């Protein structure tokens, strides 16, 4: 019989819970906020949560940073090498790539917002939506008669 609330299980998976909370926070901001810059911020939080997830899965219990132990002359300490567990460095390396991608996405998004601000004079999604609806309506009035009436 499994308990309804397994505290030990929860404690062992705390980093996943945090990852989920962070991820949902980010996604919620992206969906909920109408300010375009805030959306980018939400997207960043969302991406960071995934970085955390990757970094956390690289952890080996009892493991240390994957660097050879040095003696006081900065040579590899061969005696200390034995019996050391290292954390897995690969997820960290992967996430370096993802961080670079995240920066590129953020800067491109912000650059787009600058252009949007220049041509729409607002960075609020609802205002932009209204402007675009007006544009679409104007298009339809002008071009809607192709098949005997506005479509």
């Amino acid at each position: 019989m499994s308990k309804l609330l397994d505290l030990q299980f929860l404690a062992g998976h705390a980093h996943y819970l945090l990852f989920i909370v962070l991820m949902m926070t980010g996604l919620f901001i992206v969906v909920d906020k109408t300010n375009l810059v805030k959306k980018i911020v939400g997207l960043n939080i969302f991406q960071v949560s995934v970085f955390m997830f990757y970094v956390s899965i690289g952890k080996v219990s009892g493991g240390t940073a994957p660097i050879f132990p040095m003696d006081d002359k900065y040579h590899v300490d061969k005696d200390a090498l034995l019996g050391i567990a290292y954390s897995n460095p690969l997820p960290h390396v992967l996430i370096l790539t993802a961080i670079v991608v995240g920066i590129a996405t953020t800067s491109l998004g912000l650059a787009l917002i600058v252009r949007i601000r220049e041509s729409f004079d607002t960075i609020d999604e609802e205002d932009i939506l209204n402007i675009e609806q007006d544009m679409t309506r104007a298009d339809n009035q002008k071009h809607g008669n192709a098949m005997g009436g506005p479509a």
Partner: protein
Amino acid sequence: MADTAQIVEHTARTFRDHLPVLQVLVPFCTAPLIVLLGSRRLAWPLAFIASAIALVISFIMLMDVREGGMLTYTMGGWAPPLGIEYRVDAANAFVLLLISLIGTVVLPFAYASFRDEIKSRDHTLMYACWMLCFTGLLGMVATGDAFNVFVFLEISSLSTYVLLAMGADRDRRALTAAYDYLIMGTIGATFFVIGLGMLYMATGTLNMADMADRIADQGMNRTVRSGFAFIIVGMGLKVAMFPLHLWLPKAYTFAPSAVTVFLSATATKAALYVVMRFTFSIYNPDFAFATNTLEIIFIPLAVIAMFSASFVAVFQTNFKRMLAYSSIAQVGYMLLGIALLTDTSLTAAILHMFNHGLTKALLFMGVGAYVLRANGSFYTQIAGLGRKMPITTGAVVIGGLSLIGVPGTAGFVSKWVLVQAALERAPENAMFLAIAVAIVLSSLLAVVYVWRAFEVLYLQEPDPNSTATEAPLMMLIPMWILAGGCIWFGFSTDLLHDTAAQAANGLLQGTKGMMVLTGQGGAH
């Protein structure tokens, strides 16, 4: 290890051994070269030469793997699964050929179209972005390393956002279209990374073949399953799978014409290939949950997409937007082919990827020619242009017929194979009979929306003030190459069909089709 495909230990002594990586590397190096030279006159020739080289390479590779087998390339000589491996079999060689073919054929068209639609000071960077996007798509398809897929996906996506936003010179809505796509595309790509993370947790490897091997060994667990969900949703966004398609109509409508041509024919197809590779090769189709996902989720969504998107397309007043909705419907056919899970249906899906790529590129090029000559693609603007631009419109008619699936065109072949696939499974469940009927019925909707365009083009009086003349040769030649392709592949069906069947066969072998390369550094 099965002995159907021979794997020669990688030594890369000859030029030919390097083809899988050159495929990606040539356009990849061209992009910075264009920026560094900074010459507007050199940008286009460089891009064109790089695309043509990529086309030749992909053709050679396809000829090599057409009968089965695969080409592998290990980056820097590091043996997989530790090193990054490029692996080309019939399935990706086919998609690589589609991407590089479209990339090469569209560039002359893009030259004429950019000159009209984009400020000339942006042209150099435009071609650099184009090359990056091209690289990303080729890399996604060529690589055999799961994380590499993400990296190339982002290379292609980021440059796509830039290319889309350049439509702002004509209509400022291109900016918001690019922004929306950036938000959705990034969420999709990040979902894909989460899925990969879960797979990495469960298998401890990133090499696709090794991953497939280990999943087959250990069977299913919850981590692997949720990884599958994340990967499918993430890639589904890029594919424009039905409820995740919202970015597509706006992006295609407001992007520069040539960019729409390129993206509609390649971007969704490359993502679709990744879905196939993950569903069939990494997750074995024998696993019940993968089959269930396909049958319970993919089939209904595909059928809904086929009908709803076609229905919406019927009521559009803009030719370009109509074609964008039609693309969503056509993706539905491809997903249906994947979900029916037989040799025939997967052949149909791969064939339709190729044929629809040709067809849609042709039609969007027609739109680009109208935009050039009539300054827009609303039906009121293109009315009667069939008489003023007969050669352009002739090609558009061939494309429209192929989109419907009229016998004698490429579109017919793939839809026919798809109906066959559904009928093959009809004896086991009447639902499949209904699906076959649905394919035919939704094609009838295509008749309606394509006929609307034909009627506007031919039967309406042209605007008396219109000064439209025939499109320039730089546009007509690519259009007629693709139009010729649509007809050629409609009659000479064997070549494409056999290759697609070989690709489908390789994919459906599942994990067996993905043998692990046992190198000296291998964990096996």
